């Protein structure tokens, strides 16, 4: 059972993606419930895996019975189990929601039961793709899962209709370019080494001579993944997607999707390709781009009047933050990056669900239109405040501790890059204070504008404003988790994997031979020296 | 001018003050006490002089030197309804 869990982690949502539309087509009902059960099941598997890998031993599954380095191996260690748990958990919040993206609620009409079940299947497909990226140990398989997740994401975004279709198409252009670049890069590595296995590759690379082909491969992989991770200045696809996609999709995608690509970057550049000179150089470049992204994202977030667009730019800033930490690559920095991944996913998911609910259901998309929100939707106002505190990095919520760890990590990194990253993180926190407190001020300290929806709505009684129940649950639960992540920061931090991850011993096959080879050829991960 | 109609009050304060100060100075002269500090403490009636002169210096610094430099008319756009809070 234990050994088959990684396989189930990917297989269950993949099978569900076919099953749910089938049920929708055959029975016209029960599709949503089936999808929910499947999401819960995937979450349970991820949780079990996360609990099982806490002892430090990874759990591997050889697909088709072919062990690595020849076959495709799925393996969950502390790092991937954390990402899988986060992804599956966030999907559970999105799953009960209306995925059709009829922004005006009931007024826009309902999708057919089959159409609805189709979209629920696509969400499971997206989940399968993301979990596959997290679990796989094979470079080409990673590409396949990346494409699966991307195609599913385009579909879910385009379901928003109107401008969302255009946003999805533009995302498709950028995502295709990203996938192609990544695949080219993998091709170079395969040509050099003859292997696609992430554990075998360093061994073969140690034997191969460094040269332009290797450098090209590494560079193309990094650029491809950077586009998917929305690293400045390759972030162009992101704002429109986050603004126009349906609420449920935005909340899920904004919380985890770019982060999964950042995870792939960390895996490949920090572990598999560690010690490759070009990889170290690329990480140095990523660090500076991350600094740029943090500042540009924060500055442009201030310039926005639309809440969702402001949050989108804030996400670009956050991805810059995460990539800074990934590029610094010390034990503390990776802990900080993971803490930030978790804290930001919770807070941004909460904020996007709330923003989507208000913009989609009630037409409140501009910051000004949120004036007086606290008097009509106090629960939402509290949740948004908690999320905003976390995004700014104010105590006592989760974001404060990730900011603390990030600053400590960049300070310890030293050098010009470390100092610049440190300063940029401080600046981004101040910028976040500016644009988020503008929202909070409107929410709490102003009365609704005359004649606006909020002003007209009664405060009590059956006619009062209400959000859909699953959204209320998602927003409330995520805010509570954000708060808990801060109050129990020590417990969360203890459960984050320590970087560099321990070498897998006898995980699937005779991989133990890698130990000596890595020590000779590839250096030790986590001992990067910043220039 | 109505604004300073109460100048009898000022005169009263002056006269009371003068008597009070005279008594004080007499007492200070009788119960002399060592006072460490700057050379200016040697000046007779220094505290009185300093109270008057210091206030004059501050008044001149504020009203004569800084006032013309820093005072601007109230912004015409200010929505304070003629100064109402």
């Amino acid at each position: 059972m234990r050994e088959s869990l990684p396989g189930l982690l990917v297989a269950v949502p993949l099978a569900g993606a076919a099953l749910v539309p089938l049920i929708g087509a055959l029975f016209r009902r029960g599709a949503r419930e089936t999808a929910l059960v499947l999401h819960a099941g995937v979450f349970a598997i991820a949780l079990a895996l996360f609990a099982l890998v806490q002892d430090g031993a990874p759990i591997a599954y050889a697909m088709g019975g072919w062990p690595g380095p020849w076959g495709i191996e799925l393996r969950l260690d502390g790092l991937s189990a954390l990402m899988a748990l986060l992804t599956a958990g966030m999907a559970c919040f999105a799953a009960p929601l209306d995925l059709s993206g009829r922004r005006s609620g009931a007024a826009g009409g309902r999708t057919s039961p089959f159409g609805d079940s189709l979209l629920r299947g696509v969400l499971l497909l997206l989940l399968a793709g993301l979990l596959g990226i997290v679990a796989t140990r094979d470079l080409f398989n990673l590409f396949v899962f990346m494409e699966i997740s991307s195609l599913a994401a385009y579909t879910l975004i385009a379901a928003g209709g109107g401008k969302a279709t255009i946003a999805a198409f533009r995302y498709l252009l950028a995502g295709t370019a990203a996938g192609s670049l990544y695949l080219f890069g993998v091709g170079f590595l395969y040509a050099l080494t003859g292997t696609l296995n992430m554990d075998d590759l360093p061994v073969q690379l140690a034997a191969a001579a460094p040269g332009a082909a290797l450098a090209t491969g590494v560079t193309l992989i990094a650029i491809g993944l950077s586009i998917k991770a929305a690293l400045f200045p390759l972030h162009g696809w992101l704002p429109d997607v986050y603004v126009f996609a349906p609420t449920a999709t935005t909340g899920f995608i904004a919380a985890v999707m770019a982060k999964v690509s950042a995870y792939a970057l960390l895996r490949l550049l920090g572990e598999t390709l560690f010690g490759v000179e070009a990889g170290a150089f690329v990480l140095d470049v990523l660090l500076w781009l991350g600094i740029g992204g943090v500042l540009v994202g924060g500055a442009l977030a201030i310039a926005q009047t639309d809440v969702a667009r402001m949050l989108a730019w804030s996400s670009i800033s956050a991805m810059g933050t995460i990539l800074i930490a990934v590029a610094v690559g010390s034990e503390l920095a990776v802990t900080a990056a993971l803490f930030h991944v978790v804290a930001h996913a919770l807070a941004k998911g909460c904020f996007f669900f709330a923003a989507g609910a208000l913009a989609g259901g009630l037409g409140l998309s501009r910051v000004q239109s949120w004036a007086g929100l606290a008097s009509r939707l106090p629960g939402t106002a509290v949740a948004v405040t908690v999320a905003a505190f976390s995004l700014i990095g104010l105590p006592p919520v989760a974001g404060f501790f990730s900011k603390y760890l990030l600053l400590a990590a960049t300070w310890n990194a030293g050098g010009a890059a470390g100092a610049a990253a440190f300063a940029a993180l401080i600046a981004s926190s101040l910028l976040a204070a500016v644009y988020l407190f503008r929202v909070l001020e409107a929410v709490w300290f102003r009365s609704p504008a005359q004649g606006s929806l909020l002003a007209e709505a009664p405060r009590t009684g059956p006619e009062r404003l209400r959000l859909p129940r699953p959204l209320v649950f998602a927003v409330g639960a995520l805010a509570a988790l954000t708060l808990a992540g801060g109050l129990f920061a020590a417990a969360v931090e203890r459960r984050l994997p320590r970087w560099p991850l321990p070498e897998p011993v006898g995980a699937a096959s005779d991989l133990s031979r890698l130990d000596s080879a890595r020590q000779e050829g590839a250096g030790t991960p986590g001992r990067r020296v910043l220039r | 001018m109505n604004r300073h109609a109460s100048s009898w009050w000022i005169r009263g304060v002056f006269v009371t003050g003068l008597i009070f100060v005279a008594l004080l100075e007499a007492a200070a002269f009788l119960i002399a006490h060592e006072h460490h500090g700057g050379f200016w403490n040697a000046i007779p009636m220094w505290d009185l002089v300093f109270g008057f002169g210091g206030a004059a210096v501050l008044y001149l610094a504020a009203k004569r030197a800084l006032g013309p430099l820093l005072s601007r008319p109230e912004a015409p756009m200010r929505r304070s309804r003629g100064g109402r809070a």
Partner: protein
Amino acid sequence: MTPSWEFLIYHPGAYLIAGGLWAGLFPSYAWATSGVFSFGAAAVFVLRRLPNLDFTASVADFHLIWYRGDALSVLFTVVFTVVAGLGLIYGWYRMRRGEAAAAMIYAGCAIATVLAGDWVTFFVFWEGMAIASTALIWLGGTEQSRRAGMRYLLFHAVGGALLFVGILLHLAGGGPIEVAALTGTGPPFWLILTAVAVNAAIPPLHAWLTDAYPEASTAGSVFLSAFTTKTAVYALLRIFPGAEVLVPLGIVMTLYGVVFAILENDVRRLLGYHIVSQVGYMVTGVGLGTPLALAGAAAHAYSHILYKALLFMGAGALIEATGFRRLSDLGGVWRRMRFMTAMYLVGAVSISGWPLFNGFVSKSLIVSAAAEAHAPWTELLLTLAAVGTFLSVGLKLPWFAFFGADRGVAVRKLPSNIPIAMGIAGFLCFAYGVLPFMLYRMLPWEIDYRPFTFDHLSSSLQLLVGTGFLFFLVVRKLTPAEKRTLDVDWLWRGPLRGAVSDAGRALRGLAPAAQEARRWVVTGIDAGLRRAAAGRAAPVAPAALNFRDSIGWTIFFAAAAAAILLVILDRA
């Protein structure tokens, strides 16, 4: 010292924060109930003598000391609790639910800051104080209060960031987690000092105070006057005792505040400048660093909170009763609000250092400490500031607001909670003034000081009388003008905004050029590809790929990055 949550029972700040949250979050309960309960509980534990204990908890690998009840913390806790109670009484009818919640959380955070034993807890509540006070300003409810609150928030966000970085560097450098005097003059020292200087309103970092305090509601500004700057004084006492740089800064503060107060027309802004001035005394005292000076700084903070709250209550009562906030609109109302006038005058003579009132017994500690430390010029300049204080708060403000020519301003009757709060505050100012040992015995430093010597009384009275003479000589010239005074905040309120919008305009001007460059590149690539595909010179077609801006940029950057990286890697 085992991890313990027991401290919550003893923590007055915890009661106030919990009461504030309760009042704010649960609309069906009148805030007054939770105000009474939380303040009552806090007061009980203050009166019961706070245990001199450390309560600790381990959070995120930090050994946190939530509660450290030593003499210095307890001194500030006592006075913070007292003034929180006074403020709640004062705002009883006027404060809305949200405002009361913000005020209680603000007070609770201030208490928790001074009771914090470690840097992390200290920082957490320091930030909480900034946020709660911003809310309090915003709840003033006017357009000005909205804008001033935003400026205030930005100022404190920067200060908080400096503090955060300073603490981080302090801890990263192996510094102890306990909040204690910092030694050495590395980056942590200066960062934390700057952050505390922001909250202590040391010029030129003071403008947030005089900008924002007058824009809160009348009850809100009573709270504001008490906590932020005095928490900073506590921090200075705790962290920087004897830091010599504070002496000149403090002297500049005292005189700066006084001079601007002489020019000021807005009642509460005038009092705000006097916060700057009075905190200057405390800053000087901390800088002098002798036990007498440190004790003086602590004692003066204690006195200052009481009489400044009283003065702000008086100013607030004036504004509530008349509807005017500028001296040039007021005058001659004392007959219609005799008790309020009398209580304001108690505050005014206290701040001016009249014998028998509490300003006298604490201010003279600092001035005498300067004399004993053989710093005669410091003593002289502090005395000069005392003269200016009497001139503006003791004479100018009451003369033009309460006395002077009667302008026939209508006076509303005020609810009785306002005179009650002012009466209690006035009584305390007087009580500590005649029984100074009540204050002295609470001080963390043993001092042997007798304020009521003949010398001291005689010189103080002469000073005040001399100032009085001058005032009545130049009273006509001191008539406040209907003008505003530029302070350093106009450096960023005017020109900086212009610079930002100019920069924005310039950037927008650049955009078309950048678009053109990108189009040129994309078209060029497109044409080149076509030409290569055709294998011969083809006419350049218009760009087939009509990218929308951002996607074009993304692919452009990806291509450019790939090219640049490859070139660099090839060279390497």
